[in-house]
C-alpha cells in the first residue's frame, strides 16, 4: 500500500469479538438481534461457545448432538435457546409452550428481519420484488403497506429476480430504509451499479427516496456507520461512503455521489492467538475484503474463517484532507457522532492557513456551526419554557434536547480555536480582527447572545495594535454589546485612550442598572456636582449616602463646592425628615464638624 496511512477513513474496531474459526468440526452462527456469535463444535456435543459484544453476554454450554445445526439463537436476555436442525422445526431446549398470536398466509420467497425496529420484510410474488413489511410491537404484528422494488430488467418468463443478498434494512438518521443493491445491467442502460433507498415510514406508503451512485460494477456489501451508508467493493478492495442528508448541488435531488474518494479500510493486523504465541512474533496482516467475510447490519463484519467479529468505524480526521470544500466538509462532520474535536481542528486549520480569500470560507464555516448551535439553544429554551409552564400540559411531548458533539458553542471556539489563534505572531492583526468580527457577525445573525470574553478578545487585539479608533467605531454602533464588565474594561483603557471614559459612561447609562457605578466614576473624577445632578435625575437622591459625596467634595479643596453639596443634602434631609440633620447611621464625615466651626465661607453667611 503506497497511499499515506491517514487516508483511510474506515477502520475495524480495535477490540474485536474473537471466536473459534469455522472448520469442519466447528460451525459458526451469528444472531443479528443479540449480536451474538455461536461456535457450535460437533453439533454441540463438545461445546457451544456464545460470544456477545461484551463479556456479560458470553456463555458456554454443551448440548446433545442431534444432527447438524442449521441455526441457533438466544432470546433476549439469554433466557431461551432456540435451535433449528431441519427446515421445518425449531427446538427450544427448555420446554415451554408456544402460542399462535396471528396468522398471515402469504407465499414467501425469503425474509429479512431488522431487530432494531422489529420489522420483518417478506419477498413475495414470482419475481420476488413485491416486498411486504410487518411491524411487531407490544406483542402484536401489524401489516404495513407493501411496495415494489423496481428491477433493472423484467425477466421473461417471470422468475425470481430479487435476491435476499441485495436487500438490507437499516436505520439512517432515525428512519428505517430498505436498501436495494441494484446491479448494472447491459440491457437496461445503467452503466454502473447503484444503491436505491426506499424509505419505510411507520405510517404511510414506502417511497423510493435516494439513489447512491457507485460508478462501478462488481460485488458489493453494505454497512451503516454513524448514519453513513458504506458500500464495500470487493474487486477493488475499497469502500465508499454516502451521506443521504448531504445535498449535492450539481446532482438531481436525492441522487448522491460518494462523499469521499474510494479508500480501503485501514490495514488490520491480527495478533497470533493461542498458547503457542511467541511474544516477539509480529502480528500478521489481516486480509481485508476477503471472500470469507460476512457483512451484517448495521456495522458488523465477520470473518468466520479467522474467527473475528469487528465493528466498522469511521475515522473523521482523514476526511479533513480528502474533502476540499470546507463548507461541505462541515456539513459532513456536523452530522457525525464524535465530531467536536475534528471540527475544532478544521477551524484552526482554516485560520492558520492564511490562504488568500479564506474569509468567505471562514464565514461559511462559522454560519454552519452557529446554525446547529442555535437550533440546540432554541430547543433547550422551549424545553425550559415547557417545564416552567408545568408538566401537566403536553407532558409526553417535551424531552430534554440532547446536546450532541456537533453543538460547538462560544466557549469551545474560544478555548480551542480563537484564543490561541489571536496569539499567533505570524498572523496579521487585520486578519485576526476580521475573523473575530466574522464570528460575532455569525452569532448575531443567528440571534445568539455573544459572550463577554469574545468582546474582550476583540478589544485586547485592537488595543495591542493601537487601533482605538476602530474600537471606538465598533462601540458606537453597539457591535460590542453593553455590559458592566465591558464598561469597566473601557474605564481601564482611559489612560491610553481618553475617549474610553465617555464610551464607558454611555454604556453604564444604557445599562440603566449601573447608576451606582456612574456615581463612583464621576466622583473619582471629582465631578461632584455632575454626580449629584445625575443621581437626582434618576431619582436616587433620597436614598444615596451623603458621605461619599461630601468626601469627594472635600478632596477637591473647593470650599464653595463643599458648601453646595452640603446644603443640598441638608435640604434633602429637611424635605425627607423635617430636619437638616444627618441620620446617625449616615456616617457623616468628620469634616462636617470642621465645617460647623467655620461660620462663614467665602463671604457667605450660613
Amino acid at each position: 500500500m503506497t497511499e499515506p496511512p491517514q487516508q483511510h477513513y474506515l477502520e475495524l474496531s480495535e477490540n474485536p469479538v474473537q471466536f473459534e474459526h469455522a472448520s469442519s468440526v466447528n460451525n459458526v452462527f451469528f444472531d443479528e438481534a443479540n449480536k451474538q456469535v455461536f461456535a457450535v463444535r460437533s453439533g454441540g456435543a463438545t461445546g457451544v461457545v456464545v460470544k456477545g459484544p461484551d463479556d456479560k453476554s458470553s456463555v458456554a454450554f454443551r448440548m446433545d448432538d442431534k444432527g447438524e445445526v442449521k441455526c441457533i439463537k438466544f432470546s433476549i436476555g439469554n433466557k431461551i435457546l432456540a435451535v433449528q436442525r431441519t427446515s421445518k422445526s425449531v427446538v427450544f431446549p427448555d420446554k415451554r409452550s408456544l402460542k399462535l398470536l396471528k396468522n398471515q398466509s402469504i407465499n414467501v420467497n425469503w425474509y429479512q428481519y431488522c431487530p432494531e425496529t422489529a420489522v420483518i420484510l417478506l419477498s413475495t410474488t414470482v419475481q420476488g420484488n413485491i416486498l411486504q413489511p410487518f411491524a411487531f410491537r407490544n406483542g402484536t404484528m401489524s401489516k404495513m403497506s407493501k411496495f415494489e422494488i423496481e428491477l433493472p430488467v423484467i425477466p421473461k418468463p417471470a422468475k425470481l429476480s430479487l435476491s435476499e443478498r441485495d436487500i438490507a434494512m437499516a436505520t439512517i438518521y432515525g428512519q428505517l430504509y430498505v436498501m436495494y443493491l441494484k446491479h448494472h445491467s447491459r440491457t437496461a442502460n445503467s452503466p454502473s451499479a447503484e444503491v436505491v433507498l426506499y424509505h419505510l415510514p411507520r405510517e404511510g406508503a414506502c417511497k423510493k427516496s435516494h439513489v447512491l451512485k457507485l460508478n462501478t460494477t462488481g460485488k458489493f456489501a453494505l454497512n451503516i456507520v454513524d448514519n453513513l451508508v458504506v458500500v464495500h467493493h470487493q474487486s477493488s478492495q475499497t469502500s465508499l461512503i454516502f451521506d443521504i442528508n448531504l445535498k449535492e448541488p450539481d446532482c438531481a435531488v436525492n441522487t448522491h455521489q460518494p462523499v469521499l474518494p474510494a479508500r480501503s479500510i485501514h490495514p488490520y493486523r491480527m495478533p497470533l492467538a493461542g498458547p503457542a504465541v511467541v511474544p516477539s512474533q509480529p502480528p500478521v496482516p489481516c486480509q481485508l475484503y476477503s471472500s470469507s467475510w460476512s457483512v451484517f447490519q448495521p456495522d458488523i463484519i465477520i470473518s468466520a474463517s479467522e474467527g473475528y467479529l469487528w465493528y466498522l468505524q469511521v475515522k473523521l480526521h482523514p476526511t479533513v484532507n480528502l474533502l476540499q470544500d470546507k463548507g461541505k466538509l462541515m456539513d459532513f462532520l456536523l452530522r457525525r457522532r464524535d465530531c467536536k474535536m475534528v471540527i475544532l481542528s478544521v477551524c484552526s486549520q482554516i485560520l492558520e492557513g492564511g490562504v488568500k480569500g479564506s474569509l468567505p470560507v471562514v464565514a461559511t464555516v462559522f454560519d454552519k456551526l452557529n446554525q446547529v448551535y442555535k437550533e440546540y439553544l432554541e430547543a433547550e429554551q422551549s424545553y425550559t419554557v415547557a417545564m416552567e409552564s408545568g408538566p401537566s400540559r403536553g407532558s409526553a411531548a417535551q424531552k430534554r434536547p440532547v446536546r450532541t458533539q456537533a453543538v460547538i458553542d462560544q466557549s469551545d471556539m474560544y478555548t480551542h480555536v480563537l484564543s490561541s489563534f489571536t496569539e499567533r505572531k505570524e498572523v496579521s492583526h487585520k486578519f485576526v480582527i476580521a475573523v473575530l468580527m466574522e464570528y460575532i457577525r455569525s452569532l448575531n445573525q443567528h440571534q445568539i447572545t455573544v459572550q463577554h470574553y469574545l468582546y474582550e478578545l476583540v478589544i485586547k487585539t485592537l488595543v495591542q495594535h493601537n487601533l482605538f479608533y476602530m474600537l471606538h467605531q465598533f462601540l458606537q454602533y453597539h457591535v460590542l454589546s453593553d455590559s458592566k464588565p465591558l464598561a469597566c474594561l473601557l474605564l481601564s483603557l482611559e489612560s491610553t485612550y481618553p475617549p474610553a471614559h465617555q464610551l464607558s459612561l454611555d454604556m453604564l447609562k444604557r445599562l440603566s442598572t449601573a447608576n451606582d457605578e456612574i456615581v463612583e466614576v464621576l466622583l473619582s473624577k471629582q465631578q461632584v456636582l455632575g454626580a449629584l445632578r445625575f443621581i437626582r435625575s434618576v431619582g436616587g437622591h433620597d436614598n444615596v449616602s451623603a458621605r461619599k459625596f461630601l468626601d469627594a467634595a472635600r478632596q477637591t479643596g473647593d470650599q464653595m463646592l463643599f458648601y453646595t453639596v452640603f446644603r443640598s443634602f441638608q435640604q434633602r434631609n429637611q424635605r425627607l425628615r423635617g430636619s437638616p440633620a444627618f441620620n446617625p447611621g449616615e456616617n457623616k464625615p468628620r469634616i462636617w464638624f470642621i465645617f460647623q466651626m467655620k461660620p462663614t465661607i467665602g463671604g457667605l453667611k450660613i
Partner: protein
Amino acid sequence: MQQGKSRAGGAMQEKQYTPSLLSFFIYNPTFGPREGEEEKKILFYHPSDIEKNEKIRNVGLCEAIVQFTRTFCPTKPAKSLHTQKNRQFFFEPEDNFWIVMVVRNPMIEKPNKDGKPPTIEYQEEEILDTVYGAVVRQCYSMYKLFNGTFGRAMEAGGVELLTQKLEKFFYRYLQTLHLQSCDLLDVFGGISFFPLDKMTYLKIQSFVNRVEESLSLIKYTAFLYNDQLIWSGLEQDDMRILYKYLTTSLFPRHSEPELAGRDSPLRPEVAGNLLHYGRFLTGPTNLKDPEAKFRFPKIFVTAEDGYEELHLIVYKAMSAAACFMISASVELTRDFCEQLDGLVGPQLTLLASDICEQFTINRRISGPEKEPQFKFIYFNHMNLAEKSTIHMRKTASVCLTSVHPDLMKILGDINCDFARVDEDEEIIVKAMTDYWVVGKKSDQRELYVILNQKNANLIEVNEEVKRLCATQFNNIFFLD
C-alpha cells in the same frame, strides 16, 4: 441685533452684503529676509492681479502684527485682526509658513436721498473668529490631504514646486469657499454618521474585510451611505478631512446615474452592466473604454513615520460609497480596476439595497413621533459625530440652513463661551425674534437647540430641552 426689524419698513430698499473673501495669501518670512527681496516671501496670493507692492505691503503688515503681538504672549500669536471693514485671520500651520485670509465684514448699503452716495454700514461684530479661523485651518488640511505638507513640497522641489502646487490647488479651491454660509458646523468639522442596526453594520464589516483580504493591495477602506459615514479604516483626523472632501466636493459632483434620465450621458455604464450599479467616482468613468485612464487622485494620510501617500479610489453603487486606499507606490492597472469592479460591484449593490431596506424598517419602527420636532445641532468632540436638523443637505455650492443667520450667530457665541471653560455648562438665551436658544455642554458633547415658543418661560424651555434629550439622546450619558 438692532437691525432686525427696522430694515423691512423703509420705502427705499436697503442692500445687505454677506461676508466675502477679500484676499488669501501664504508667505514665509524667512524666504526674503532682506530688503528688496520681500516678494520672495510670498508663495501664493489671491487675487493674483493685485499690484506687487500692495501684496508686499499687506504681507508686511501681517508679519508686523504677528511679530508685535508675540511680545505679549510668545506661545499664542495673534489669530485675527478686527478692523471696521474687514477681518484678517492668521494661521501658522508649519514653522514660518503663514496663511492669511482676509474677509470683508458684512455690510448694509443705505440709499440716501437727494442723489447722495449710499451710506455703508459695516457690521463688524457679525462674524465669528472661531468660524473663519476654522475655515482657514480647513483650507490647509485640504491642501495637505492632496499634496502633503508644505515642507514636503519644499524638500521635493524647493520654493518653485511649492508655489506651483499652491497655485494649482488654491486657484480652484478658493472658488469653492462660500464664506457667507460658514457657521458653527465649520467650527466642529464633524462627521455625520449613518444610523444603522448592529446586524447590517456587521455585514458591512464583513464586506470590507473580505474585499481587503482578496484585494490585498487595499490598505484602508471607508464606507459611506447617503453621504454619511459608517466605517473608517483611516484615523479620525484623516477621515475628518476626507469626509469633508467627499461630502462637499466629490459626491455633489456626481449625481446618481440611476436617477438620471434614460438617455442621460451619465447612464452608459449602468446600461452596459446589468449585474450591478457599481461605478468609479474617481479614476476611469467607463471601464470598457479602451482609452480609459487608470489614474486616481492621491491623498496623504498620517502614518507611523510621518505621512503616507495613497491612491484614492471612490467606488459607488446606489447610495453606498466605498473608498479604497492603496499605496501610491503601486501602479494601478486596468486589470486591477476590472477585478475590483467585478468583486465589489455586485456586493456593494446588494449591500446598498440591504441598508436601504433596513433603514426604512427602522424608521417605520421608530415612527414619525421620534422624528425631531426641534431644530438642533449636536456635536461630540470624542468621535466628531455631528447631527444637525438645522442644515439642509449640503451641496457643492451652498450649505442651506433653515434658521436666520442671527440665530446661527448666537449658536456660535455660545460655542465660544463653552470653549473658554472645561466644565459642563448650560446657557439659555432669549433672542429678539421670540426664539429661545439653548446650549448645553456635557463632558465632550455639545448640544444647541432652537425653540420657537413665543410665550414660553425659562422653566418651560428647560423642560422642553429635557424632553428632547430624553428622546434623542437617551442612549448616551448626557447630563440634564
